[in-house]
């Protein structure tokens, strides 16, 4: 190669390098780009197996009712509804002149089809649809839905899961094809999807809620790595980056184009006790011992040391933002090792005892450190905790739940602003994640479940909290804080405590 050709070649390479950045299109202000931390398994709502997928899918669909930012149930595709006196029959008046993205009209048949396709056993969320016994049309725009028993959260459940689907289109293409090319009545319509890469949607020009959505195009980009999401929000390639850590957002300080959002996650971390299986015959059977463990754990110190103070000490299972939560009534157990030792002595364990605690290795952020800190903190009151680290795949399986313990670390999220899913999941006998079985908890949960009146339900939650405090089935640990970063010009974005967000009202400031 002569020097001349070498020079020409170098010049060409340099020119290409300079021209390259122009090759990737800059996003326009009418386009909203949102990062997803994983590729949605499906955009068919009953098969959206995680929050990331359901968040993306909700841009395409509507339900009959909607939960507003204050947690109230408000009309969506139903303009009005009545509930029978016994709380088992709902009659919905449907909005007229609503059409699906393919032109199919929305009517009573759509509600029936939604229920029928949703309750299929093979769906991840079949349960939500099976909560109704019967869905029938009274006329084209009126439907009656019957539940087997009064269900306090039925409307919330509908708002969360029942995404209305077009019956004719589904009958024509089948569920699998529907999931590939979904059609709803939602603020955006599906344009294309590149597996593992992006989902493109455009504004639905015929959307029934006038003035919405606020942007012309919506693009979801799959970015599994949090530090890459962080880089992408800094370069302006995306407008919303969720699931970041406190450390990560700290580098955004002083960046003018990016705003950091943080909020408490509706998830409680806890150490569960067992009064079945491995828990039988252990000191844990005595309520005083379980109280002692709650007093003897320095949850504030753990938050400070492991989460730089960016987590909330959990007062119990009913936490900030939940129905019935009252900051004055519900304070976390104070750190009081003296009181803990007294209680242990009263229970007949003045020198403490040895016990094993399961821990889902790397199952949650910093969980390994948390488990070790628990063991060290409880060591201070003479309780010798042996931490049993297990891989998460093995840990969260039915077989393992039966043998782990007698104590184990876990967490439970809740949605729609009520602690019921968390209580039900962890305390109702027969659920396979329940390892503390006690009639008084179970019956109170049942009462909450069937109490349709919100006020009365709030009072029951307070009662539940007190019960879980006197006779604690868990050591309550903490509630994490979620960090996100968004384009500073973004308006109308309001993620909720269960990491749900809706993009129909999200736009850019002029």
């Amino acid at each position, binding site marked *: 190669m002569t020097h001349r050709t070498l020079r020409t070649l170098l010049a060409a390479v340099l020119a290409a390098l300079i021209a390259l950045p122009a090759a990737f299109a800059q996003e326009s202000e009418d386009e909203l780009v949102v990062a997803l931390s994983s590729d949605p398994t499906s955009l068919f709502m009953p098969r959206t197996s995680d929050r990331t997928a359901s968040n993306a899918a909700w841009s395409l669909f509507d339900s009959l009712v909607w939960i507003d930012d204050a947690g109230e149930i408000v009309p969506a595709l139903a303009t009005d509804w009545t509930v029978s006196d016994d709380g088992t029959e709902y009659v919905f008046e449907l909005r007229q002149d609503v059409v699906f993205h393919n032109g199919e009209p929305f009517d009573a048949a759509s509600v029936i089809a939604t229920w029928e396709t949703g309750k299929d*056993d093979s769906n991840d969320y079949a349960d939500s649809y099976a909560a109704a016994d019967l869905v029938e049309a009274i006329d084209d725009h009126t439907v009656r839905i019957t539940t087997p028993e009064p269900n306090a959260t039925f409307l919330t459940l509908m708002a969360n899961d029942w995404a209305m689907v077009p019956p004719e289109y589904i009958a024509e293409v089948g569920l699998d094809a529907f999931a590939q090319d979904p059609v709803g009545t939602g603020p955006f319509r599906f344009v294309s999807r590149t597996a593992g890469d992006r989902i493109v949607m455009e504004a639905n020009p015929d959307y029934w809620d006038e003035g919405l959505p606020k942007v012309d195009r919506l693009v979801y980009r799959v970015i*599994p790595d949090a*530090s890459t999401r962080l880089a992408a929000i800094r370069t302006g*390639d995306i407008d919303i980056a969720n699931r970041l850590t406190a450390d990560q957002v700290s580098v955004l300080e002083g960046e003018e184009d990016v705003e950091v959002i943080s909020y408490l996650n509706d998830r409680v971390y806890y150490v569960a006790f067992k009064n079945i299986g491995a828990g039988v015959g252990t000191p844990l059977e005595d309520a005083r011992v379980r109280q002692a463990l709650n007093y003897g754990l320095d949850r504030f110190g753990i938050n400070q040391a492991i989460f730089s103070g960016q987590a909330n000490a959990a007062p119990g299972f009913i936490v900030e933002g939940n129905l019935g939560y009252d900051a004055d009534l519900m304070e976390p157990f104070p750190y009081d090792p003296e009181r803990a030792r007294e209680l242990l002595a009263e229970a007949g364990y003045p020198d403490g005892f040895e016990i094993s605690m399961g821990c889902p290795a790397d199952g949650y952020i910093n969980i390994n450190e948390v488990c070790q800190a628990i063991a060290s903190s409880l060591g201070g009151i003479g309780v010798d905790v042996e931490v049993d680290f297990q891989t998460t795949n093995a840990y969260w*399986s039915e077989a393992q739940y039966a043998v782990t313990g007698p104590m184990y670390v876990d967490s439970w999220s809740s949605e729609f602003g009520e602690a019921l899913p968390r209580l039900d999941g962890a305390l109702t006998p027969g659920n396979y994640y329940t390892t503390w079985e006690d009639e008084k908890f179970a019956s109170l949960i049942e009462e909450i479940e069937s109490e349709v009146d919100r006020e009365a339900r709030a009072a029951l939650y307070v009662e539940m909290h007190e019960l879980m405090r006197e006779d604690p089935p868990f050591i309550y640990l903490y509630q994490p804080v979620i960090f996100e970063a968004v384009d500073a010009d973004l308006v109308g974005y309001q993620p909720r405590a269960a990491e749900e967000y809706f993009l129909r009202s999200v736009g850019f400031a002029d």
Partner: protein
Amino acid sequence: MLRFLVRRTGESLLLILGVLVLVFFMVRLTGDPVGLMLPKEAPPEQRAAFAAAMGLDRPLPVQFAEYMTGVFRGDLGDSLRQRRPTIEIIGERLPATLELALAALAFAMIVAVPLGLAGGMRPGSGLDLAARGVGLAGQTIPNFWLGMLLIVFFSVQLGWFPSFGRDGPASLVLPAVALGFAGMGQLVRLTRSAVLEVRKSDYIRTARAKGIRERVVSLRHVLPNVAIPIVSVIGIQFTYLLGGSVYIEVVFAWPGLGTLLETAIRDTDFPLVQSITIFLSLFAISIHLATDLVYGLIDPRLRLS
């Protein structure tokens, strides 16, 4: 040559069989898919129905027999999460991974082979120092860390390249460099030492003694003789790049098999993990076979032994 071919192909087939058996059982050692697939709230009846629908309630030998017959029919099963044939899903992601692996390999070769040759031909020179430095850096810097560094510097600070995704040629540059870096390091060291070795041989001394120009010596006499180790390492590199792209794909949100595998493992999507592993193994075995055959073509001694 024919015997060599038949023997190597036979060995490869045995290897494939071993991989199939290993993959099936290893995937099942890691946990119960039903508990992980369904939400925590799912009642026992739904769990049972789900297990039945997915064939997970049958005895392990039956599942294994079905799996093996499926494999021979080219049916690797459906993804538990996406409910589509895994082959179809892999097909969608394969082009992105191949593109990235080829680009990384191209990057590694373009930098490493000339640099290794130059360094080897003039030991102790500035170029040789550079070659040794690059070799060391390539082998010691972890690729995911390099990836993050490249993003921070070239995307966030300079704004030259996109920070993630697959959006045309510009988006290929950073992941290809990050992925190809380790291979480049290995290749540059190997080329350099092969050149040093060859340069000591009698025929090079003879060529020089005949008064042949140095450039002709390197291109006609040195290069062909260092080609054999280079070709074999390139073959190994390529399979490494396919499998090793998991981190890099995740760091750059590159929609290939690596991110797919990562998601499938996280979701405990057994059939998908199984299919990707089988696919990558088949690919690796084929590449090795092809490398051996090419090897045989360029070096007659191997055919005969």
